[in-house]
């Protein structure tokens, strides 16, 4: 058991990051709290006094609850999809000795080099009512009417999964690369087949990567703004677009702040929960 005490060198090395987090994350979030408690009078602006009304509304109103659930649900499904698609890809990238490996990695990273708005417009061109996908489906006789692929759950799911896949893959590659091959070889010597090795050795050992990749993708998904605004439109709102609307279309900063605080708390709670679950899983492995 290593001795637990404040290591000043470690703190010194961490402090630039800690300071950055303090100023770029904690303070702005904390600054939202006083605003979120102010009343708002339409037509005259932010009022004086204190109220919990914006929180009460965000947490009890059926419309807002639906949007909160939808956002969290979207986060889970996108995370799951990127994991299912990303894991095999990451496995191949981490274990391949082919000289194409670097090109494959580049291919995974490539979408990140392209501006987000441009990528999203690409999806609009593909998914629109008369977009490429619908033209092909109808041309091939697979559909009679154009499918609704935009302004709904499907559209956001496709767009966000594509955009956040590289994050999952890159995190997983790093972790899978660090799993000692000897452990897998040992399992194989003891008679385990490929799938048994994978399920009982490789997968549990990559749990930290699965966890950090999932947290990353989940948080990015539920806080994404540009893609939901463009692919979801006014008819399919998520929390971030609702917050944007309160701040920049209705000028109701208190209500927007309250929703932002709620969203931050949901993210923190889910991260804590996820870390706990993963720790338990690791301990069992």
């Amino acid at each position: 058991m290593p001795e637990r005490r404040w290591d000043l060198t470690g703190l010194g090395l961490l402090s630039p990051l800690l300071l950055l987090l303090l100023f770029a994350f904690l303070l702005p979030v904390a600054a939202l709290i006083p605003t979120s408690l102010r009343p708002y009078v339409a037509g005259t602006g932010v009022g004086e006094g204190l109220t919990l009304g914006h929180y009460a509304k965000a947490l009890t109103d059926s419309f807002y609850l639906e949007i909160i659930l939808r956002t969290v649900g979207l986060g889970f499904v996108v995370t799951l999809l990127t994991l299912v698609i990303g894991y095999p890809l990451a496995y191949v990238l981490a274990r391949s000795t082919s000289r194409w490996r670097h090109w494959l990695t580049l291919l995974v990273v490539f979408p990140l080099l392209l501006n987000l708005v441009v990528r999203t417009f690409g999806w609009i061109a593909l998914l629109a009512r008369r977009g490429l996908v619908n033209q092909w489906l109808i041309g091939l006789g697979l559909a009679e009417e154009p499918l609704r692929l935009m302004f709904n759950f499907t559209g956001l799911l496709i767009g966000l999964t594509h955009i956040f896949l590289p994050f999952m893959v890159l995190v997983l590659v790093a972790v899978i690369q660090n799993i000692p091959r000897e452990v897998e070889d040992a399992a194989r010597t003891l008679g385990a087949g490929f799938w048994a090795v994978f399920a009982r050795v490789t997968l549990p050992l990559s749990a930290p990567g699965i966890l950090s990749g999932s947290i990353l993708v989940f948080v990015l998904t539920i806080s994404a703004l540009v893609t939901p605004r463009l692919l979801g439109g006014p008819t399919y709102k998520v929390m971030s677009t609702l917050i944007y609307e309160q701040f920049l279309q209705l000028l109701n900063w208190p209500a927007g702040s309250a929703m932002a605080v709620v969203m931050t708390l949901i993210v923190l709670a889910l991260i804590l929960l996820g870390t706990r679950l993963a720790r338990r899983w690791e301990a069992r492995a």
Partner: protein
Amino acid sequence: MGRFRRSLAATAMAAGLLAGAAATTARSQELNVALFGGSFAENVRTCVAEPFQRATGARVNFVLGNSVQNAARLRATRGRPDVDIAYMDLQVAVQAKNEGLLDQVDAARLTNLPDIYPSAVDPDRRWIGFMYSSTAIAYNPRELRNPPQAWADLWSPSLRGKLAIGDITATSGQHFLIAAARINGGSVENVEPGFRAIRDLRPHVVTLYTQADQVVQLIERGDIAAAVWFSDRVGAAARSGVPVAVVFPREGAVGILPTFSIPIGARSKALAEQYMDRALGAEAQRCFAERQFAGPTNRRVELPDELARLVPYRESVERMYFPPPEIVARSLPAWTERWNREIAR
């Protein structure tokens, strides 16, 4: 390599210093203007900013944003604004005025003010309307031989699956709600009949657009044959070759009054007033009518007949319905909430 890099760094530093020096000398003669983007900004540059720069030697910088973004900017920088002039649609300007963000314009310094229609000037002179536009009906003349002539025609079965309307966050969405209420026995204070009528229409509407420019693509792609849209946008789109024409509906188009204001604490108030005066002058207003299809608020502007038919001008301004901005600003959050639940959902 090392030497090259060092010289590169030196050059960059020198350039930085030069830019810094230029910025300090020009600061006193700089005017920062927050205005709407797209062709609007281009036309303001041609009709107002460039002549102003030539006449005064001051530099005009544009900061682009929509009405609400500009109001949010003023609120966030209250008392120490980083712009000298902010362009906002009337109902947003009224909100900013009520929040105590807008300064009073000095009437003595605005020589063109007496020529502006009184209804386009705030009695307190904290906002001034520089153009008229309207929410009207746009249609594709190649697809509709008998275009809708009235707001009520938009509910006709022949337009099912061919119509786009604005979301409530777009001015045209708010105006369509008001118009729908008015033709069904309601008013701006009682929009209930409007909500009911639009709820019936909603299944037949192709899309709720949030950005005015989306309508251009929708018409070009053939996704829609008609839209509730802005009369000035129709003129600009038609000139660039989009098959689109405007109908001012029989019951009256809904008037839009874009305004500009000087925020309290602006660094160059006198210069800003000079800029406003130029923008309100007959020359700039005529230029803006020709390029932006904006109805002049200066009553001395004479327009050729052909242009007068396309823009809100004289009688057609009088026929338009201008919703009282105080009521719109006060009701908008409730309208938006209800719209999100009943129309957009």
